[in-house]
């Protein structure tokens, strides 16, 4: 049974999350609670939970400070930040402290319970980083009406198409490298569902380069509009300029 630590200073909200966890997650996890970052850190050391739902603004020690400490001691800890702050700066700063091994998420308090459950499931069960699209300011889909991919998967598809490495995607999307790898494997499962596994078993060798094959599949299904890739490129260049001060000649 999974163990989840809820760190939140407002007791009503803390109990609300506890109830949600017990009622909506299957199988229901064991839930422990702490009222501030300091207590959360102490409880983490003794109880070793699988995942932490962490408020940011708390007395004694903020959620970010506590998470930094926890990640220092145990880099693979899954932490879902549950915050009232819509600012991308939060996601960016957290992205800076998240270790390569960790899976983390950023959910907003102003959003519905369903979204919180989705975020928890995503991080806890699917090992898939979740960052609320409202915070990330998701780029509009490029003439893609196919809804079979989630926004997050579509974003990863764009990054792969642009030729970014795992590290680069992690830096650009403010998630861990492991988070990127998990996203990628989700994408592969959806687009080339088991096909390559089957082929590999038959042929006794790797037939497809997964990244290229994903792009091929996406083109085939018209998930990517070849005419719209310039927009992808523009976005990428903007990020490069902002992040690394690199201006394309």
């Amino acid at each position: 049974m999974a163990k989840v630590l809820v760190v939140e200073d407002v007791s009503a909200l803390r109990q609300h999350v506890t109830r949600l966890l017990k009622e909506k997650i299957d199988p229901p996890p064991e839930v422990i609670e702490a009222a501030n970052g300091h207590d959360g850190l102490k409880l983490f050391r003794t109880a070793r939970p699988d995942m932490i739902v962490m408020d940011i603004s708390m007395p004694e020690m903020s959620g970010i400070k506590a998470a930094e400490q926890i990640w220092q001691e145990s880099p693979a800890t899954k932490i879902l930040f549950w915050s009232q702050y819509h600012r991308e700066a939060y996601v960016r700063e957290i992205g800076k402290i998240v270790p390569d091994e960790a899976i983390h998420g950023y959910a907003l308090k102003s959003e519905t319970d369903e979204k919180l459950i989705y975020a928890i499931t995503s991080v806890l069960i699917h090992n898939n980083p979740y960052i609320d699209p409202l915070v990330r300011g998701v780029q509009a889909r490029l003439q893609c009406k196919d809804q079979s991919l989630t926004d997050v998967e579509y974003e990863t598809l764009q990054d792969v198409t642009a030729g970014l490495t795992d590290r680069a995607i992690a830096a650009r999307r403010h998630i861990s490298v492991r988070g990127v790898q998990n996203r990628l494997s989700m994408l592969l499962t959806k687009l080339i569902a088991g096909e390559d596994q089957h082929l590999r078993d038959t042929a006794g060798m790797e037939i497809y380069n997964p990244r290229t094959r994903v792009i091929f599949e996406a083109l085939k299904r018209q998930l990517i509009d070849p005419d719209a890739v310039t927009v992808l490129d523009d976005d990428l260049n903007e990020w490069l300029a902002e992040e690394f001060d690199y201006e394309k000649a």
Partner: protein
Amino acid sequence: MAGSNAGPKTYILPVTLVSLVVAWLAIVVAARGAWLDAEVLTRLLAIFAVQGKSEAGAAPIAIALPLPVQAGTTFLFALGATWCGFRLAAVPRLLVSVQLFVLSLLSVVGLRCWLGGGAHPLAYFAAVFLGCLCGYGLRVVDLKRRKQESQHYELLLRNKELQETKLQLVKQDEIERRMLAADLHDQVLNDLKAVRQKLDAYESAPDPAVAEAIRGLLSQAMDEIREVMDSLCPSALEHLGLVAALEDCLRRGAARAGFKTRFKTRLGGRETGALSMVEQSLLYRLFQESVTNVCKHAGATLVRASVTVEDDELVIRVADNGRGIDQSRLREDSRGVRYMRQRADLIGATIAWRPGEEGKGTTVEIRLSLSGREDGQGSCS
């Protein structure tokens, strides 16, 4: 004082030299012209020699002048010496006092030769010496008093300035408070009123569309309150530190005004962690004001901001490529500029506006000395 001394200084040296020469000449001429015969000279010299008194045949000349004349001349020397000690600075004082000594010597010679008597030369010397000393003492006392006085006035002036600054800040606070009230009134209150109306409508006829509208209005109101709260107390500054908060501020400005941004820094939280929370939030406000100005006036397409440490100073720059700031407005200290300067003054920072590179736009530079701080003393918590 220094200015008025420049005059005397230039002619005192030649005058002193000339007076020494004249004194020497006077003695020589007096000796040649038998006004000062050998006997008188011997007697005269005996006056200066301590042992002269006891030597046979060289008894001091009897004092022949009336006492008032002696006292008067001695007094004149004392007065001159006092003036010299009191009014003159070090070098001229030395030269003038030498002159006074020479003058007293001359007058001893003169008085003895022509009038056959005079005050004892040691009396003159003592008068000159004590006069100088006395004058100098007065001078020291006077300087002290003047210094105190000027310090007093300086203090008064500074107090007045402080008072004005305080008033300005209070005024500005008042303006901000009004804007805040207006924000709350125009946006949040109106949304809430609409919520109430919709709720009434929903009560009479439950309609999912109305419920959805209510939900939308409520979350809109929440966003607005969050916006207002954030302008009151920037949460990013509290939780993420100065550098991240500045970057966030710039990006939000970019989203509002539609310019591109480049934010550059090599600092982590360490350097800015040494700043107190008050310093951090004032720096943030200055930066925010600069970004707001760019949004409002510059019409820029690209804004570059950087946070660096140069020569133990924290340097925050905001450079836009917009229309540029009117230099005359800067000179005459427009209200916004003055207000920002005052805010910077509060934490000992400086703020400067310059025309941007290649003559385009404006660069704002905020500097704060980091020296003499211990790490982590007032880190955000």
